[in-house]
């Protein structure tokens, strides 16, 4: 690091402090989840996995986890299929209209979900989609599209459009070009988009609060009720399981990117 410019001590202290502020509070749920007490606290006499047992044998928690997983998978498929097709077509056409549509596609990232949620609450009653699996899948799928559009567009940015023109020029049909020329190149972008669309649905609470009530009771909804009603260590165990899953998915994303770079 000869002659290189490093941060001064104020920046050093402030940045390390901020990093700790970001990470430590999340880590605290790990010891709390292994407490030997029956209330939310640090372990007193020893570590216990009893609260994980409570969660993993409770039909309510398991039911919600299963339902959330199904909804997130279905919403991801919906977002990936439509979002990828859109991103590829918008990239290929590169028309004024497609650029406008692209901005429209990003709306769900900007408009607060509370606004969309109250809109859906009325709208879905009319479509008879309230408290239905399909209703939540549609809501999560539509709002997941921007994540896919962004990651796929990013992976297309490095792609030479002449390859596609060459393939077309040599007589390949649209579907052949898509399958053999474009898709293999943008696969990492699609996988990233899918991961983010999945996490988006898996964590989504605000819409679910409005458009689902009894039959559809996702994991975030159950956690929400738990935080508002009974704060017990089982909640911490759920939190740890969720953090673990998120980190796993992010590592998967890193692996996919590494492989595509190398």
């Amino acid at each position, binding site marked *: 690091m000869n002659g290189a*410019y490093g941060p001064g001590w104020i920046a050093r202290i402030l940045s390390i402090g901020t990093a700790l502020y*970001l990470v430590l509070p999340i880590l605290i749920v790990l010891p709390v989840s292994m407490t030997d007490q029956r209330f939310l606290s640090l372990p007193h006499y020893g570590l216990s996995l009893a609260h994980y047992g409570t969660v993993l044998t409770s039909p309510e928690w398991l039911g919600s986890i299963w339902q959330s997983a199904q909804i997130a998978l279905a919403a991801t498929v919906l977002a990936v299929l439509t979002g990828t097709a859109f991103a590829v077509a918008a990239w290929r056409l590169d028309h004024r209209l497609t650029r406008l549509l*692209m901005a429209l596609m990003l709306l769900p990232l900007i408009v607060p979900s509370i606004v969309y949620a*109250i809109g859906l609450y009325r709208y879905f009653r009319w479509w008879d989609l309230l408290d239905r699996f399909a209703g939540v899948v549609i809501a999560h799928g539509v709002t997941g*599209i921007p994540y896919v559009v962004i990651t796929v567009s990013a992976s297309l940015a490095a792609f030479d459009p002449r390859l596609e023109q060459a393939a077309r020029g040599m007589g390949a049909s649209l579907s052949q070009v898509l399958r053999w020329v474009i898709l293999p190149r943008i696969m990492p972008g699609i996988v990233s988009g899918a991961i983010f669309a999945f996490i988006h649905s898996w964590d989504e609470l605000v819409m679910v609060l409005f458009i689902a009530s009894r039959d559809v009771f996702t994991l975030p909804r159950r956690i929400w009720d738990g935080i508002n009603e009974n704060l017990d260590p089982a909640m911490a165990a759920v939190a740890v399981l969720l953090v673990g899953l998120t980190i796993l998915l992010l590592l998967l994303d890193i692996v996919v990117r590494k492989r595509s770079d190398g």
Partner: protein
Amino acid sequence: MWRRDAGWWVLLLPAFALLTVFYIAPILQVLAISFTDPEPGIGNYERILTNLSVQRALLTTLRICVITTAIALVLGYALAYAITLASERGRRWWLFCVLVPLWISVLVRAFAWVTLLRRQGLVNQTLIETGIIAEPLPLVWNEFGIIVGMVHFMVPYAVLPMLASMREIDPRLLAAARGLGASRLTVFRRVFLPLSLPGLIAAGVLVFIFSLGFYVTPAILGGGKTLMVAEWISLQILDLIRWGLGTMMATLLVVSILVTLAVFSRVVDLRRLFGSGAR
């Protein structure tokens, strides 16, 4: 030409149809209700000037958003600065500290803060056991708790755009300025800060508009006593069944966000922001 491209235009359709029917339409409906319920006209909007509850929600939201944005910018700037100047290996660790919180469930994070900050929480317990305080401090279920949780949520969103613009600064400029005799503070003030300004503004806009409509964290850490706009809207719709007022506030929220974005659209490239967020 159009004929040849027809297949591509068809590929745009599914996403476009889905968005129009199941996203744009319900939101336009919210807009429409705000002008028609309980009676046609702008009666709901007149409440902004007359209704105390509306005004209190707006003021609380604005105050919390401004404070949150300011703190998140300072902390995020320090973090982005350290990441920019770090070595290749150090950078990976720093980024990990920023990206993991970004993707961890907002509910889990709010829950962790409740565990730490409530009356019998870990912070109060530790402070009492070490004899620093005698009575537990009110750290949560008030504005303080909301801000702690919101800043925690927003710092990663502040870091990413600032990082993108700081990485374009040539590090040799800084070394050169030092070599020419500038003090550390001067280098920062005259060289680094001006060059990173676009990123700082972009981060400020992003954090501010995200804070405006934030629901989950303020609802949990505010404990129902400090109402921000999003929770206020939900209260109107779910508990008080006052659709006119609720949708009016929702419309106001969307309009303020879109106006803020339009004003700053020159410095904020949303696609790039979120693109780097996913990376």
